[in-house]
């Protein structure tokens, strides 16, 4: 009986196949097309690549081209038979080797470098230490601290430089006396203006990034990893050094990249604190060249700045390398045993409290206090006024500028700003979620990586250069004639609301897409596959599965972009026209014109809006802004 049973030892091709149609090449091509079109991933990638090329790669190429092409203003300077638009190395020679190169490039570059390195070192250490204290130790008043330490993030950095000036300025340079002057303390110039002041202000602003990133990383490290070290007899400092620190190192390095490139490209703070003493950084130099119509030189400087940013990121990527992968190993640590601070508890709490008071509350209080001062520099009670908030126009005060609540323009700008911020954050967040979907599902595909890299480019370009790039691209329209039809390739958008929206969206795409990726990665592919097998097409899957599961992440991304655009000055300062003015620009111009109180009023209003949005998003949507920052 046994030997009759045929043993199927190895699998042979089945002999009784159903009738198969003969192979048809036509059907193959039809199916290839059908598969390509019916796969939403392909369509999204295609759309993303086309749009990103148009909005990122083309402007970048245009900018590079401009640096090699002779501008009208410089034709005479070169003399001879020079023609407008001809190929030239003039600008690169001018920047790199001419007699003004030291003043225009090397000195500002050196200054920027000093500032960026100091800010990264101090700011990131500060942020990391605070993160560790708040996440891992038994520090008291944690709820208060964790809200207070991210408040600097909600106030534009240049507002803090206004507060800095208010405290430290002296009559010699500032014109009016600062608070310390008023108390009879003479402040030296090096403290009031220049690198020390700039680094100090940037540090109390950018430490928030390091805090957000490192605390997120610390929370994801399982405390059992540390407890294991303890069981093996390691002392607390040793555990901190050899277990905790290496685990959050990727987050720390990400913060360094972020802080370094942000402070390298920042414009507001060095412009407030540097220009008065002729201390130029690369970004203020860039701004002044572009303001002086030396666009080509400005673009050349921008490109140098972009190259530096790229090198910085490349080095950091090499450093982080494979280590990046274990950033979240261990998942949620369930319970997390807190380190006892013991006798250090009181001194550390007091120290942190002092830091919060000086770095977070004092700038706000100073700004607010100043809005109630009729004359700048007089801190007495007799000088108190509500004029700058609710006063009617008075010819005796600042040529009749009314208090902001009575200023028609102010309300117009508030509407402008809210419109810009809401439209931009919404679009950017939605794009970011879709890009995040591409990134998370296409990680292993060349197309997914291409999209990821394209999206990353705006991150490398300093805001102010980015604004300049859009200015040159959309200043006039470019049309081509195809088959007798005139097609506008690039419309003239300068001075329109659209260009502000565009530039804000594209510049913030790296953050939006990171927030989106962080969001999408946590939605398991299997959840979507289960719906696919049940017969749900892509729109249904997105509406019924992906979107409901990513709501909180969506809010986090939205808030991140909202806060960022709300404060944005560097990016749009070049593109501003009187009609499209936003609150940050209004505050900036008031301040530049010396109308400090009104400028502060506007800054306070901006802060309140940001704070309100943050509170709502945090309270009702459990949103978390760290996700989009992560690198």
């Amino acid at each position: 009986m046994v030997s009759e049973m045929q043993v199927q030892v190895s699998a042979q091709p089945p002999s009784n196949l159903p009738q198969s149609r003969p192979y048809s090449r036509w059907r193959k091509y039809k199916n290839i097309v059908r598969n390509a079109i019916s796969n939403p991933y392909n369509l999204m990638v295609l759309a993303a690549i086309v749009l990103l090329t148009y909005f990122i790669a083309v402007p970048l190429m245009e900018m590079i081209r401009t640096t090699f092409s002779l501008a009208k203003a410089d034709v005479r300077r070169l003399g001879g038979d020079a023609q407008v638009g001809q190929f030239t190395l003039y600008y690169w020679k001018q920047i790199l080797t001419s007699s003004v190169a030291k003043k225009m490039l090397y000195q500002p570059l050196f200054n920027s470098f000093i500032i960026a390195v100091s800010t990264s070192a101090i700011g990131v250490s500060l942020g990391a230490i605070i993160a560790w204290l708040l996440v891992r130790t038994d520090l008291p008043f944690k709820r208060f601290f964790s809200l207070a330490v991210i408040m600097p993030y909600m106030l534009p950095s240049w507002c803090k430089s206004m507060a800095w000036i208010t405290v430290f300025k002296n009559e010699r340079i500032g014109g009016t006396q600062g608070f310390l002057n008023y108390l009879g303390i003479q402040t030296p110039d090096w403290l009031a203006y220049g690198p020390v002041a700039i680094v100090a202000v940037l540090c109390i602003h950018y430490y928030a990034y390091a805090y957000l990133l490192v605390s997120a990383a610390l929370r994801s490290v399982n405390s059992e990893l540390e407890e294991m070290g303890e069981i093996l007899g390691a002392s607390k400092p040793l555990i901190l050094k050899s277990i905790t620190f290496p685990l959050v190192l990727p987050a720390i390095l990400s913060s360094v990249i972020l802080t370094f490139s942000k402070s390298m490209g920042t414009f507001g703070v060095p412009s407030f604190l540097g220009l008065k003493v002729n201390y130029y950084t690369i970004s203020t130099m860039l701004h002044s060249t572009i303001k002086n119509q030396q666009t080509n030189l400005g673009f050349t400087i921008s490109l140098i700045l972009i190259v530096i940013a790229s090198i910085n990121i490349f080095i950091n990527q090499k450093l982080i390398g494979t280590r990046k992968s274990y950033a979240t190993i261990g998942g949620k640590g369930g319970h997390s045993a807190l380190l006892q601070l013991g006798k250090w508890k009181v001194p550390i709490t007091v120290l942190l409290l002092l830091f919060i008071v000086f770095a977070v509350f004092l700038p706000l209080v100073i700004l607010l206090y100043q809005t109630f001062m009729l004359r700048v520099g007089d801190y007495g009670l007799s000088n108190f006024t509500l004029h700058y908030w609710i006063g009617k126009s008075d010819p005796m005060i600042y040529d009749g500028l009314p208090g902001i609540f009575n200023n028609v323009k102010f309300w117009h700008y508030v509407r402008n700003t809210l419109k810009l911020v809401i439209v931009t954050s919404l679009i950017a967040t939605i794009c970011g979620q879709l890009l995040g979907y591409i990134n998370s599902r296409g990680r292993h595909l060349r197309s997914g990586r291409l999209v990821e890299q394209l999206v990353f480019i705006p991150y490398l370009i300093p805001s102010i250069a980015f604004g300049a790039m859009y200015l040159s691209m959309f200043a006039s329209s470019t049309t081509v004639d195809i088959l007798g039809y005139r097609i506008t390739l690039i419309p003239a958008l300068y001075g329109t609301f659209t260009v502000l929206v565009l530039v804000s969206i594209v510049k913030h795409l790296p953050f939006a897409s990171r927030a989106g990726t962080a969001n999408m990665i946590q939605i398991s592919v299997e959840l979507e596959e289960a719906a696919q097998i049940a017969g749900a097409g892509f729109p249904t899957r997105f509406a019924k599965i992906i979107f409901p599961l990513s709501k909180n992440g969506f809010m986090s991304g939205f808030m991140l972009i909202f806060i960022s655009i709300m404060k944005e000055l560097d990016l749009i300062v070049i593109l501003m026209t009187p009609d499209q003015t936003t609150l940050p620009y209004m505050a900036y111009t008031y301040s530049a014109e010396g109308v400090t109180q009104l400028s502060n009023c506007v800054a306070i209003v901006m802060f309140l809006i940001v704070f309100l949005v943050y509170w709502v998003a945090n309270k009702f949507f459990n949103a978390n802004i760290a996700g989009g920052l992560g690198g």
Partner: protein
Amino acid sequence: MSRIVLSEINKYYGSNHVLKDLNLVVEDGDFMTLLGPSGCGKTTTLRVIAGLEKPQSGNIYMDEREVVNAKERFYEDPAKRGLNLVFQSYALWPHMTVFDNVAFGLKVEKVPKAQIAQRVQNALERMRISELAQRYPSELSGGQQQRVAIARAIVSEPKVLLLDEPLSNLDAKLRVDMRSELKRLHRELGATIIYVTHDQVEALTMSTKIAIFFDGVLEQVNTPMEVYQNPASIRIADFIGNPRINFIPGKAQRAGDLLTVESVLGIHQFNADTFTNEMPGDGLFDCVVGVRPEQIEISRQENAAGIPANIYSSMPAGSETLLQLSVGDVQILAKQIGLKNYAADQPVWMLINPESINIFHKETGRLIKRATSETEE
């Protein structure tokens, strides 16, 4: 009716060749288990059948219908293949109640509301979880989530039910319960089930057929008993069975219809009717003798037909006793039913029915001599 035929399937992830010339026929009503160590391609096979992965070459037919024709780049939509899948992670949608999870597919199909309620209720009752309908997945235990995932898969009345390691996240006791539950479900639904696991006990106890994969190659497809008694290769023999099979080195010589094998078990001769088609031609070669521990009888008395051995150690475990024996320099494991007591170094005699042993070609690793069946009807 649902017969599935996979023909010449090849699947690559980049340069990684994960399925190599796969041919497999799943007959209607089979409980087919895809078995193998992790990374062997069994889950990929399941996903290719489900339509979640697209193979680079090959064809798949369900009944007479072609669902994959890689040459023409034709891949039928997963939803149109009349199957459903239970994921290893269950993949329950956390923002929907149990009822909504199960009803989702029917809603997509636009089934009338009353009918949805009825069918969901039936599916939940079948899995004995109707009282959980309004709960969210996070409020359920692992075993309950498992039942919801199965209910969601069967509510659409699929002709083929695919299960990807569904029991691997359950504790040992629940796993035994769910095994019998799944076997009952298979009988009641009458559907074809394709089941992926790396657990050979699950495969042996539940399936009507087992397909064993190694490194992307399907090495053997057969009934559980046949796979157990006549594993097609040394690595299958090694993978299937607990405690594991004994491998004893030997020398073999084939002369026409006669195979002579010499090892520490003595000299045995086998006839051509036990040969497989992997048998090499006439000549001398190295072989491996495979003997399952339970096929070795132990005699305490000297036995002329027996092979003398010494007890190396004795491991009584209640219902069975494992004996480690040494024969010359070879260690052999034997299994006896019930509690037995042996002293260390006690001499014993092993009785082995030569019909029941497997002979493998050492170089190719293939089975060359089959065991004859001992299954009791």
